[in-house]
């Protein structure tokens, strides 16, 4: 009996050890580039690309950060402002439009399977390679006279985010027991009242998840933003890329701005991860 117990105990330990190794390895994959980014931002220029690589900087400097904000040629602040405004507006709009669209798609009864067709098309848009939409967006925005405006990027981002938002919200609405809405119907609620008073409060966790995913996508999107914004509407990822120049790579300021771009995301994720986990597994366990 004793030996069985000891063997089981050793099994437990081995399992715990194995688990720890897997977790540490996956963490390294995720965190190492971020640490490298941060360390580079506080190194002196000589150590940026030295071989062998310098892991612990011989001298710590915050010059790159100071430069970002103090240098009159730096547009970091403008980009930060653009990024915040564009992310907030695009997220709010895509959650608003997406949740209404999804509600209609789950409730409309149209002939010839039109509803699944529309929903399928929306999903298809999500699989569309983004690069193929760059030129159409460029042409449309140019014709509308919206080039290099926040509005142009907001519209494009809403388009990008809608498939995810709509499908996420469709699954959320479908999880809601239909009797609850029927009950409200019998209680005298019209369609808007049912959506506003019953469905909306119950689907809020879903909307939070949609908002989080949408905000993350907007904050880091580069391809479309870079094609629509040249000077005035530049977002942070574009500013970061601007340090890759024909005159060379400005690793220090680039890393500093990169770090500043990533830090809000990390803080944001720490605060909202509870919703993310709950939202993505919503309905998996019946209450």
């Amino acid at each position, binding site marked *: 009996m004793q030996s069985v117990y000891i063997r089981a105990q050793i099994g437990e330990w081995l399992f715990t050890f194995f688990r720890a190794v897997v977790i540490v390895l996956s963490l390294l994959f995720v965190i190492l580039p971020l640490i490298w980014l941060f360390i580079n931002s506080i190194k002196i220029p000589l150590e940026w690309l030295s071989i062998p690589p310098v892991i612990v900087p011989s001298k710590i400097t915050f010059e790159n950060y100071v430069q970002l904000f103090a240098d009159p040629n730096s547009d970091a602040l403008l980009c930060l402002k653009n990024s915040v405004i564009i992310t907030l507006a695009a997220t709010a709009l895509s959650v608003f439009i997406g949740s209404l669209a999804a509600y209609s798609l789950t409730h409309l009864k149209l002939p010839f399977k039109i509803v699944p067709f529309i929903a399928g098309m929306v999903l298809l848009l999500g699989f569309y390679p983004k690069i193929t939409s760059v030129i159409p967006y460029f042409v449309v925005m140019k014709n509308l006279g919206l080039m290099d405006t926040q509005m142009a990027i907001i519209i494009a981002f809403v388009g990008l985010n809608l498939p995810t938002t709509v499908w996420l919200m469709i699954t959320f609405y479908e999880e809601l027991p239909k009797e609850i809405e029927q009950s409200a119907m*019998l209680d005298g*609620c019209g369609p808007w*009242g049912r959506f506003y008073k019953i469905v909306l409060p119950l689907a809020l966790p879903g909307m939070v998840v949609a908002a989080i995913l949408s905000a993350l996508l907007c904050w880091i999107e580069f391809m479309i933003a870079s094609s629509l914004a040249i000077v005035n509407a530049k977002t942070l990822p574009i500013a970061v890329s601007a340090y890759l120049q024909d005159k060379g790579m400005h690793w220090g300021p680039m890393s500093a701005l990169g770090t500043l771009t990533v830090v809000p995301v990390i803080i944001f994720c720490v605060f909202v991860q509870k919703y993310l986990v709950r939202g993505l597994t919503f309905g998996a366990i019946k209450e």
Partner: protein
Amino acid sequence: MATVRMVNLSKYFGKVGAVKGLNLVAEDKQFLTLLGPSGCGKSTTLNMIAGLELPTDGEIYLDDALINKMPPAYRNVAMVFQTYALYPHMNVWNNMAFALRIHKEPKEVIDRKVNGAATMLGIANLLDRRPRELSGGQRQRVALGRAIVRDPKVFLLDEPLSNLDAALRLQMRAELKLLFDRLQATVIYVTHDQAEAMTMSDKVAILKDGVLQQVGSPLEIYYRPVNRFVAGFVGSPKMNSVTCTLRAEGEAIFVRTADFELSLPEKTSASRLASQFGRELVLGIRPEDLHLDAIENASTIRGKAAVVEHLGSDTIILLDTGSQMLTLVAQGSATVRPGENLSVRVDKDRIYLFEEDSEKAVLTPELLSVWGGAA
């Protein structure tokens, strides 16, 4: 309160008929139960009365108004769902007050009605709780309260007790009956539980595959089933069914099965069952009409006790008569051991005969008593 009248009501989902040509009336202040197995169309019927489903054909009248296409909100009917369908994000008070607020009732009226219903249902101390903080029975009461405060013309209840545990179901069954007696309400109640239907209803309507089989008071249904399905569906344990033929010997008529033969009571004259001779029939005997106090004679059923289930108040015995099993219920705790040979008496005044092919009833206890009276 009001009368609900369904005329030739049908509902098809594509080609599948859920309800077919239903003609049924729930009279004012009547407790009507729609009883049937799952998929028989009873919930669909209820949904059509509520307005949650549109009928494919036929009419529904609330009092004298045709309500086929009237939106649910205007019908003034209240529904209690099997899952209760309480609003999870509102507390009990708001759940109950919701409909009144939608209809912009004055605050004093809302307060009075909600508090009145809550007191009546014994949930006055739970008003500030959310549904998830309530037990099944309490949620059930809130769902009822939400219906009561609206003072509806008709209460529609869709299997409201099926999510409760057995003990609570019994308790709520009695409470519901008391409650609706007091409210003097028209109630249409859907269930697959024959015990609920028998104990609570003024009138039971039995459905099978979307077709109405029989309407009547619980005892009518029990003693005068129109067919084998109805006879088998009401009563617990289920009625025994044995294939048989009829045989006449002078004035007496005998029912012959593979394992035993029974003589029918004298009032069943051969002329009344003339058309049934030479046909395959099904003999129906309810488990409580088989008795262990047999005095050996030609009509005694002999068999071996295969399974003995002691319930305390009753004992259920499965009797192996050779080629089939009969269920019998003995009162009290019968001292029967599995494997024991038993002689069983049949209460001949209470046997049923059905046609084998059409399943139509040709003999029921009620018919027998009518024939007895006539003779």
